[in-house]
């Protein structure tokens, strides 16, 4: 029987027609559940991978395993101040930045002007936290690629940051430090010295990290040209933070839409340049984080000398009851643009707090980056997005 079959059906990708055989030789697709318990999904993310051998045909993320009803809780709270500990628990490795965004939003609603001292301390804390968060992102990314040692180097350095936080407010992970209109505690006397010590200690370590991981041949092989996200696609997906900058878009809310006192500092916005591969690949996203840590050090060093004297709680309102209004405030967290949409209805608790989590939006671009990649690449791409499930699911 002389038969030739040609499949144009979308389901039969990779079909090969054998003349005279009548039956196409094709490989079958397999559905592979990556997660919710998997070492490299950075939490309880489930990725439904449709794979053809090692090649990924489609990725369907399933989220919500860590949904803790942040928005429902926020509406049920007695007052605005009580929401801050919940905000801490969204992006739990960059809690300071979450608090900062929420506090700024509430202050704008209440039309409060916070003292200078508070602003400076907030900026230092936020930047220290940014370094801490990037250290985890970089360390775990190395571990995703298979290098274990950089992970512990990063944690060693992060420990110093956590020590500073611990001295200041007693907590190491979830601080409840930045309050609406002020701070929970003033910084200890040795704070300035400690922060300076850290900057001095940490700068050389970035070079060590680069030598060990960033410019490692195998690491570059694994991350360059993988998961390329072109700039237009990135903007259309609304991704932000290092993911957007990795695609070559010079966009940082600290510069482009300044909040707090970021307009007073001199720093660069690192962007991906496609040095070792295509612009917008995993290595670019990774490298943006490394450079951002240096810039954060710059900001801290500029800010730490200028902390004015004053009281950190003088502007904290006794009773928080904003007029009926609504606003959207966004700040730059280590992961990207964190937005708070708050609807106040004139009572002591908000009618609606919608969070625009950067990880949630960045993760939605994952399928676009993963199609046609290999299973190992999915890990590399997911790691380069740097998600925190606490924030994706809220």
């Amino acid at each position, binding site marked *: 029987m002389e038969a030739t079959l040609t499949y144009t059906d979308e389901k039969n990708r990779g079909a090969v027609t054998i003349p005279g055989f009548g039956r196409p030789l094709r490989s079958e697709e397999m559905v592979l559940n990556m997660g919710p318990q998997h070492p490299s999904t950075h939490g309880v993310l489930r990725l439904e991978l449709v794979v053809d051998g090692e090649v990924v045909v489609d990725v369907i993320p399933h*989220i*919500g395993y860590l*949904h803790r*009803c942040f*928005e*429902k809780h926020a*509406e049920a709270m007695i007052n605005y101040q009580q929401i801050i500990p919940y905000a801490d628990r969204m992006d739990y490795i960059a809690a300071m930045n979450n608090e900062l965004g929420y506090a700024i939003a509430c202050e*704008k*609603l209440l039309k409060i002007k916070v003292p200078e001292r508070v602003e400076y301390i907030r900026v230092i804390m936020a930047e220290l936290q940014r370094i801490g968060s990037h250290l985890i992102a970089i360390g775990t990314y190395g571990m995703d690629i298979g290098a274990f040692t950089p992970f512990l180097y990063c944690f060693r350095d992060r420990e110093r940051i956590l020590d500073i936080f611990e001295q200041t407010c007693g907590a190491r992970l979830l601080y409840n430090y930045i309050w609406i209109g002020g701070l929970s505690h003033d910084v200890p006397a040795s704070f300035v010295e400690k922060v300076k010590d850290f900057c001095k200690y940490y700068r050389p370590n970035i070079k060590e990290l680069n030598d060990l991981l960033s410019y490692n041949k195998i690491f570059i092989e694994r991350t360059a040209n993988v998961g390329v996200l072109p700039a237009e*696609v990135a*903007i*259309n*997906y*609304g991704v932000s933070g290092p993911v957007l900058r990795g695609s070559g*878009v010079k*966009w940082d809310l600290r510069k*482009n*839409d300044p909040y707090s006192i970021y307009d007073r500092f001199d720093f660069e916005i690192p962007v991906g340049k496609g040095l070792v591969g295509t612009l917008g690949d995993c290595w670019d996203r990774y490298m943006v984080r490394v450079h951002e840590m240096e810039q954060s050090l710059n900001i801290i060093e500029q800010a730490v000398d200028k902390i004015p004297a004053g009281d950190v709680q003088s502007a904290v309102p006794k009773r928080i009851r904003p007029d009926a*209004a*609504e*606003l*959207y405030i*966004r700040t730059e967290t280590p992961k990207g*643009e964190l*937005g708070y*949409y708050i*609807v106040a209805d004139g009572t002591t608790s908000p009618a*609606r707090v*919608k969070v*625009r989590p950067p990880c*949630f*939006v960045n993760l*939605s*671009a994952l399928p*676009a980056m993963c199609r046609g990649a290999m299973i190992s690449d999915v890990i590399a791409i997911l790691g380069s997005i740097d998600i925190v499930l606490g924030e994706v*699911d*809220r």
Partner: protein
Amino acid sequence: MIPQEISNAIKAKFPDALLEAKVDGVFDPYAKIAPDKIKDVSLFLRDNEETLFDSLMCLSGVDYTGGKLGVVYHLHSMKWNHKFTLKVDVTVENPHCQSVESVWKTANWHEREAFDMYGIVFDGHPDLRRILMPYDWEGYPLRKDYKVPEYYQGMKVPY
């Protein structure tokens, strides 16, 4: 462009789509759009050279109580660095609204979330499933009249 100009541009292009505009006395100036016109307006705002709203910062569902639901779109232009807010009001009885997923991919998951939490149905969305709650969850948790169910799949929900 200042917000007044943006709202005028919408009015000039879609006279019957613009239901209300408020640019003064609010934090974020907004325009209220008819639910069945939101996609066209979005597409216009995105592609018009003068507005160029190429990114959707946030899409939120809101329950205004009294059977009124709403969707709020926060737009931003990377090039012009201006912002604008669009609002769509729907009712609990007829919670249908056009999807803007084809305009901004950001809307994909945000619309799923608004559907998940408020039951707002986005017509034209390619994959409108629940996103944060389990797929077989009943009810829309962020509605103000939502009651926490006592049982989920025969298991008692601890409270």
